[in-house]
């Protein structure tokens, strides 16, 4: 989780895209994942996600996410194999057979899960949260209070993930076996940390809210934003690609 959603500074083509375009692009890739039925097309969409990672200078993070999702996907794939009963048996005999439909359903599920999860997280990691709240307020006329709440919640995800990592590292240094390979044992060690982490997180949010109020948060209006956002030609190209992916999803 460490580094997940952390903003990666840069000046790549993705960094320069308007935040709304990035949201539109990621929503379109998600939609294409759920509209498309063909596994090859779904693999292509995952390829698009990795390409986005490369274009945004966050390829390592994209690969990391892909690997993480792959582990979860194996579990979900096996569940589909075991529970889908319809279709032609490939291995074993009914009622304990693995069917062709089970394989196809499991494959679609994991490809969709991977393809749809990656784009928003990748695009958010190349977007400043202040820019995101800025466009939400300026263009979509979302009240600043809600835009700020949304972007602050997103910003706090890596902050709290880092806090958890720091606690685990400190505990490891004091002999707690957080570096164990056994996931159940690791989960058992992490669970007792959740409550203190939650309490410290709430306390920190409370203090940050007070700090925001003390710097005029309640006085802010839509006109307060000093930055102005305009769509560029790159945004048009990205929007067209996004629309084409959705169209391909409908057709395939």
């Amino acid at each position: 989780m460490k580094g997940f959603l952390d903003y990666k500074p840069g000046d790549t083509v993705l960094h320069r895209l308007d935040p709304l375009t990035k949201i539109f692009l990621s929503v379109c890739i998600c939609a294409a994942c759920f509209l498309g039925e063909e596994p090859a097309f779904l693999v292509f969409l995952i390829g698009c996600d990795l390409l986005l990672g490369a274009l945004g200078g966050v390829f390592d993070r994209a690969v990391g996410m892909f690997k993480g999702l792959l582990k979860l996907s194996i579990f979900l794939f096996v569940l589909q194999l075991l529970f889908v009963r319809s279709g032609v048996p490939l291995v074993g005999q009914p009622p304990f057979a693995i069917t062709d439909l089970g394989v196809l359903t499991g494959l679609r599920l994991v490809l969709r899960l991977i393809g749809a999860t990656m784009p928003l997280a990748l695009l958010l990691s190349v977007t400043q949260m202040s820019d995101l709240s800025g466009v939400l307020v300026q263009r979509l006329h979302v009240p600043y209070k809600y835009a700020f709440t949304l972007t602050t919640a997103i910003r706090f995800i890596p902050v709290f993930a880092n806090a958890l990592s720091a606690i685990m590292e400190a505990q490891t240094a004091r002999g707690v076996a957080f570096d164990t390979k056994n996931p159940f044992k690791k989960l058992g060690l992490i669970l007792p940390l959740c409550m203190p982490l939650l309490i410290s997180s709430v306390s920190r949010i409370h203090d940050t809210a007070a700090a925001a109020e003390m710097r005029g948060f309640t006085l802010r209006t839509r006109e307060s934003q000093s930055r102005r956002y305009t769509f560029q030609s790159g945004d048009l190209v990205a929007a067209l690609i996004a629309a084409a992916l959705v169209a391909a999803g409908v057709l395939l």
Partner: protein
Amino acid sequence: MIEMRAFSFRYAGADRDALSNLNMTVDDGDFIGVIGPSGAGKTTLTQALSGLVPHRRSGDFFGSVTVNGLDTVNSSLTELALHVGSVFQDIDSQMIAGQVEDEILFGLENFGVDRAEIPRRVDKALADIGISPLRHRTIDSLSGGQKQKVAIAAILALRPKILVLDEPTGELDPGASEQIFRLLRRMNETHGMTVIVVEQKIMLLSAYAKKLAVLNDGVLELFGPVREVLRHSARLEEIGVHCPRVATLSNRLADLTGGALAVDLDEAEALVRGLLP
């Protein structure tokens, strides 16, 4: 002007007052250094001035605290923020934005500073604190000391009438600490900004503050011009505040010879030379 009259505050669940019967007046343009041992009530004092006490800290509030005529109990945090700029001890919780420039912009935009003026204010705040190269860095990539400087720059950019800082140099090296205090003095002298700073480094306070407030167990033990307070070096040592060595030495010499108090090395040298035949 800040006035505290018979002000006491006890945190919910605590068995004693964090601050007890405090009476203190801070005039416009004052530069007050607040010092005292751990648990003396220094942070509670700064939070009372910014309104966090009682608006964000539950407990029993007695007496009154007024800031430029505003009663802190009856005024909102935002109303008080129009007069008081605060830098907390916990810097991380004060960081609102993800990037240094956005952190400075946040308050300026909220308080409706003129759009043409905003870039100048941002440039000046960054340059004054010496963090212009950090402008486009993410907050999470900064060290504790750098974050501390960003927090101070974000408040200075707002140019509040009163500046309250809780251990603003806690994570800074001696050179950077001096730089911050020089800047505070400049803001105090050229802009007439009232500065109230909690600090453990008494040498810095002695050199830059006009007055010292010494807290001990929630009680205001001493309050007055720096030289007057440092005269009580024995009492300060008793409550765990270590006086600058030159002040302690000159106090002892003064006991013997009736000489003046020295608060820095130059004054101590002059004092000793004066005593030599």
